[in-house]
């Protein structure tokens, strides 16, 4: 049941009405929400519903135990929770990779490879559980005593499949309190959903067949074409993932929830550090809090070297989070290495805000350089094997880079320019279509224009989102 499917439209419409009918009865509303969460998840694969409910139950139990105990007993429960959560994720996502790599390394016959599917959203809901345990350990959070609220937190359907990864401190209090619906919030949520749908259905889905064609046949194509493929992939993954995130946040807002922002106009980032502060924010802020900050403290005696080590380790973990592939590890490593010049020149935390209506030449230069680095990194993201990655880099850095690229379509260029224009117009707002400041007529023009674009240029066959696989 994809956000952009008819099944989801019907499901959400019915649920939305029913949910607000019980606006005065918080408990009923939460029970309905829980049922909706499980229907939504079960629609994908009911077999893994038991895993989700079981994991939630265990996390609920351990959360209370962590809070009730002190000292070594508390530590024991925290560790148990982390082992179970990470162990489950490892079993489903990484076990085969390690077994196969081990067998290959030592030339042993591998008979242990598991034939199991990856449960949908496991990386996302596991991270929610881990943050819950760690927040309890650090006394940043009190355990949730209401099981319905807690189970809702773990399985919250708008952010179930691809995030954002919400922390308990944000979502649990909202689940305990009465939600309010206002016309303005509802209208703005719909605007966010509309823009998300436009980015996914029109922009991302139009680019997908081109990038797939290029990456699957890179060895027969010119360097310029492969390079164009990586640039197109930047816009594809941005439109896909930020489109999904906009829809997820919009649907949550329609139910009266505020969830974590996942993108903050990363296409205008002026250096790589700023890019990661604006891209997949919920993951990077999660890792900053639970991995990077403890590492920085751990390495504090080593000055800049310690900071570099912490950043590289953090980014390698971001790479590994994406999946069990060497190319993902290298993707993380490369981005970690990108930070070194910023650290050495003390520019890591310098924030450059774009304020004018038009960017300066220097800002344009910074943005283009940052995007160039990101695009080069995406080669490692899209290449299924190291051999493919080397092959793609080989094509890009060959003389054929200076030939005329194939697959450049005016329509795609137009769509990319449109996304950049809309993003730029609203770069200081909460989301890309936050246009409540405009006059009603202008707003309506935007709505009708985007609806028309979706209806006219939309590609509805590819329902899945890139980040679902993670």
């Amino acid at each position, binding site marked *: 049941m994809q956000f952009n499917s008819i099944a989801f439209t019907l499901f959400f419409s019915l649920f939305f009405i029913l949910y*607000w009918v019980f606006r005065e009865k918080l408990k009923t509303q939460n029970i309905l929400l829980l049922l909706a969460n499980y229907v939504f998840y079960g629609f994908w694969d009911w077999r893994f519903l038991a895993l989700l409910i079981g994991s939630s139950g265990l996390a609920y139990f351990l959360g209370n135990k962590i809070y009730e105990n002190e000292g070594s007993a508390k530590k024991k429960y925290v560790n148990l929770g982390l082992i179970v959560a990470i162990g489950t994720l490892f079993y489903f996502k990484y076990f085969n990779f390690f077994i196969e790599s081990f067998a290959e390394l030592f030339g042993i016959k591998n008979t242990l490879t598991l034939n199991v599917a990856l449960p949908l959203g496991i990386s996302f809901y596991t991270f929610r559980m881990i943050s819950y345990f760690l927040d309890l350990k650090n006394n940043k959070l009190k355990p949730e005593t209401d099981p319905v609220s807690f189970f809702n937190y773990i399985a919250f359907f708008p952010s179930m499949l691809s995030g954002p990864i919400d922390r308990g401190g944000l979502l649990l209090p909202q689940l305990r309190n009465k939600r309010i*619906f*206002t*016309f303005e919030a*509802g209208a703005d949520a719909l605007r966010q959903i509309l823009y998300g749908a436009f980015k996914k259905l029109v922009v991302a889905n139009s680019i997908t067949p081109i990038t797939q064609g290029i990456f699957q046949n890179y060895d027969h194509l010119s360097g310029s074409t492969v390079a164009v493929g990586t640039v197109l992939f930047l816009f594809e993954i941005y439109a896909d993932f930020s489109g999904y995130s906009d829809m997820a946040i919009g649907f949550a807002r329609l139910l009266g929830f505020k969830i974590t922002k996942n993108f903050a106009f990363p296409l205008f980032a002026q250096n790589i550090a700023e890019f990661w502060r604006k891209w997949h924010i919920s993951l990077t802020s999660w890792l900053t809090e639970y991995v990077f900050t403890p590492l920085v403290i751990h390495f504090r005696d080593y000055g800049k070297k310690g900071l570099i080590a912490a950043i590289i380790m953090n980014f390698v973990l971001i790479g590994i989070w994406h999946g069990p592939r060497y190319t993902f590890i290298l993707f993380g490593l490369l981005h970690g290495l990108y930070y070194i010049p910023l650290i050495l020149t003390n520019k890591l935390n310098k924030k450059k805000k774009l304020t004018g209506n038009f960017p300066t030449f220097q800002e344009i230069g910074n943005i283009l350089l940052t995007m160039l680095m990101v695009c080069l990194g995406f080669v490692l993201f899209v290449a299924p094997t190291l051999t493919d990655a080397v092959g793609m880099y080989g094509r890009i850095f060959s003389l054929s880079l200076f030939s005329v690229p194939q697959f450049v379509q005016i329509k795609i260029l137009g769509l990319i320019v449109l996304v950049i224009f809309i993003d730029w117009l609203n770069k200081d707002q909460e989301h890309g279509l936050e246009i409540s400041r405009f006059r009603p007529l202008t707003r309506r023009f935007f*709505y009708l224009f985007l609806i028309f674009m979706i*209806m006219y240029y939309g*590609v*509805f*066959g590819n329902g899945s989102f890139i980040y679902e696989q993670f």
Partner: protein
Amino acid sequence: MNSFNMKKFLFKLSFYVVAVIIVLLFLGTYADGNTDDNYRHFTGLRPSNMILGDSRGAQAVVPDILDEKIKGREFDNFSLNIADSPYGTIYFEAIRKKLNPETKDGIFIVTVDPWNVSVPKDSKNEKEYSENRSALADMHFYDKVPNYEYLLKHYPRSWFNIYREREAVGRSSTYLHKNGWMEVSVSIHPDTLKVREAGKIQQYRALASQQKISKYRIDALENIIRYLKNKGTVYMVRIPVSHGIMEIEKAYSPDFSEVMKTISKKNNIKFLDFASQGKHYIYTDGNHMYKESSKVFTAQIADSIVADKKKSE
């Protein structure tokens, strides 16, 4: 929540929703034989006389010729393609839904080839078969005009394309007639044919190494035959192909015609085996019959059916 807020919200939203629905309903009315290769199989009256099979059958058997030769009957070609309509439970269910329930004396032409009774060697269970992703697997309505269910579920492009590419603008090279005949209009210049056939031979060689004849599919074929026998007369037909493709089929399943003959005898139906007559026809790619040849070939089937009917009277 302020209930007024919600009312205002739903009221304003409804304008956009209604506008979108009206535009979609309007565009859907233009759906025709150009829309895609399968749409029209899910529209029109439920037939009492059917042609079954895959794309070979879809192109080689022309219902208009049958209607003309076998008076008083209207045929519908319900053959889709090898991915959508190989013999199996999904196709069987679709046939049940498509067929006029009142049918008592229908004529059914069941076209067979080694590929529509085969499955991939590496598939672990029936759920992995290609037809599970077909429109046949999830459609309820087979006789609506326009069929919005089909368009919503299986038309992945913008609906404006339905209007832009409508028949009135010009027939597409793969045009699906109302009676289910797939009319393919491509160049038959000998050089072009050679290139296309070479490509097809390569494709079928690869296919032969990946597929195997399946008991599941043969059982399904027999179930379909038994079901249709209760609704009228069934003729099993093997459509001819070019020499190159036939050689691959002979190597892949040397006794295919014998197996089909056994099935037809067992079920007391007639098997019209045209496998040896390949050289009499023109093929667009070695595998699919050219439209003018299809008319001649269909006339031959019709003559056989008429002769059989006369004999049994």
